[in-house]
């Protein structure tokens, strides 16, 4: 009796997921993890090109920009302080946050502060970064105005502003602005920009730079399936990410990062959603892009990696069902039964110390 109920539940679980693939993701969230607006990639689109890192100026401002780069690429230097897994920001934002269609920092910086209807709150650039610390890095975000958030904001600002200035043929160094201005982000009328740039582009245009986020791909023809995804994983992913998805450490560094389990992103991260992961994977994986996955393969493999246990959703107040209803049910597997187990009930700890 009991076992047949479980079988039925399991079957319902997979049905629910198929249905979810067809519905639009829930847009509003009482947190900083709302999905980014995503649009399909266009052919012959040109993208902003940030200046070479060797153009970062000497001096205190330049030092903040350089620190931002270093924290972004080697985020593990903040392990146990603000980071609770083996990831680095660069793992999901390729080329140190400079690559178009890999959610580049230059695309993000001019899109904040972003107004969010649900909590009638404006979220600043540093708050968005705090979100990635709490969820993608399974950690505890640095405080507002902290040197780390200032540095990451300075790096994002410098990349974006330099690129926009070059596009508008404005020479000279990127204007230095205060820490308080840096962490807010640039989508506001009172944000200081060179006059020629203000004339060339509106605030709204700067907030919608082509190449921002991960490009949307069409819905799969067949409802996405972790079973089919496993075959894609074995053929095209496991050489690098490991048979068990735990990545590979060389000299103590996970150059090849874990995709699930205790050392990966948690159940609150944007990447845990099948759609977001499918967009990311289709555009950026297999790393180096020696081959292109089909849309269907990207959805299937995204479903496969995201139907494994990972660290708990920090917003879970002790009840998976409650957290699921409040924050999930949008093309994801939190609270869904997979292989007879409800995902989220056996999750790994949030912000564990490195043993």
């Amino acid at each position, binding site marked *: 009796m009991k076992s047949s109920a479980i079988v039925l539940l399991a079957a319902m679980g997979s049905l629910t997921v198929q249905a979810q693939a067809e519905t639009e993701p829930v847009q509003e969230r009482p947190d900083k993890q709302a999905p980014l607006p995503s649009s399909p990639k266009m052919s012959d689109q040109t993208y902003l090109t940030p200046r070479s890192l060797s153009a970062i100026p000497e001096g205190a401002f330049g030092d903040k920009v350089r620190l931002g780069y270093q924290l972004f690429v080697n985020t593990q230097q903040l392990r146990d302080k603000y980071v609770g897994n083996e990831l680095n920001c660069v793992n999901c934002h390729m080329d140190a946050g400079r690559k178009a269609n890999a959610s580049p920092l230059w695309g993000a910086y001019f899109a904040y502060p972003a107004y969010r209807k649900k909590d009638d709150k404006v979220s600043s650039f540093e708050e968005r970064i705090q979100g990635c610390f709490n969820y993608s890095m399974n950690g505890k975000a640095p405080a507002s105005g902290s040197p780390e958030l200032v540095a990451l904001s300075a790096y994002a600002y410098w990349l974006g502003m330099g690129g926009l200035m070059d596009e508008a043929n404005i020479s000279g160094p990127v204007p230095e602005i205060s820490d308080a201005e840096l962490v807010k982000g640039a989508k506001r009328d009172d944000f200081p920009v060179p006059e020629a740039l203000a004339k060339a582009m509106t605030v709204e245009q700067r907030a919608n730079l082509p190449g921002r986020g991960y490009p949307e791909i069409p819905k799969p023809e067949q409802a996405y399936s972790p079973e089919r995804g496993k075959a894609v994983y074995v053929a095209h992913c496991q*050489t690098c990410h490991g048979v068990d998805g735990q990545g590979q450490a*060389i000299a103590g560094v996970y150059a090849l990062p874990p995709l699930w389990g205790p050392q990966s992103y948690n159940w609150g991260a944007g990447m845990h959603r099948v759609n977001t992961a499918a967009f990311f994977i289709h555009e950026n994986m297999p790393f180096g892009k020696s081959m292109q996955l089909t849309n269907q393969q990207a959805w299937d493999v995204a479903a496969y990696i995201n139907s494994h246990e990972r660290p708990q959703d920090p917003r879970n107040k002790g009840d998976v069902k409650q957290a699921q209803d409040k924050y999930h049910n949008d093309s994801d597997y939190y609270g869904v039964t997979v292989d007879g187990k409800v995902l989220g009930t056996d999750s790994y700890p949030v912000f564990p110390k490195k043993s």
Partner: protein
Amino acid sequence: MKIVRFIIGVAFFGAYINTTQAQSDTAPSLPPSGQLCISCHGAQGQGMEPLGPRLAGLSTEYLVKQISDFQAGHRLNATMQPMAMVLQGESVSQVAAYFSAQTVPVVTAELRGQHVTFTDTAARLAYQGDWARELPACVTCHGPSGLGGGLFPRLAGQQASYIKTQLQAWQAGTRKGDVDGMMASVANKLTIAEIDALANYFANLK
């Protein structure tokens, strides 16, 4: 006749047990089939330029895969292919385990992100790649300082001439066998000047 075979079999089996016992205590000793290899790769697999590359410090997994790549013709090389053919069955993993266990000079790992800018173009390619050409950083796959692990070979301290011929072999299509051509797609984007610079860079890492 049958008895003789049986005796030889027992003798071999005994030798096998002895080597495996030795392995569990200390580093593996050179198996008989490995005698052939050391004339070109050195007794400790340290490499003998230009006869054969260093094998020490490469993982067993990687060495086994390369031997089977030579056997299957994914790697075309007139000198090494016949050598690979000599190895059959158990001897492949025994030889691989032996060379893998040999020590290599310690190289201090430089982490990605440790430096922001590089004056040396090879170091920049190694640490930051050139994404305008969709060329990822070498150390992303080969690990910090190209120290290698698993199926990603160690580049630090390998012979420059060998690194160069391998990158050219991918360009010429005479080396294959990497999953989805992941290394081929990197090698194909490199200029000959970059290949020279990268080969020297990794060979001289200390």
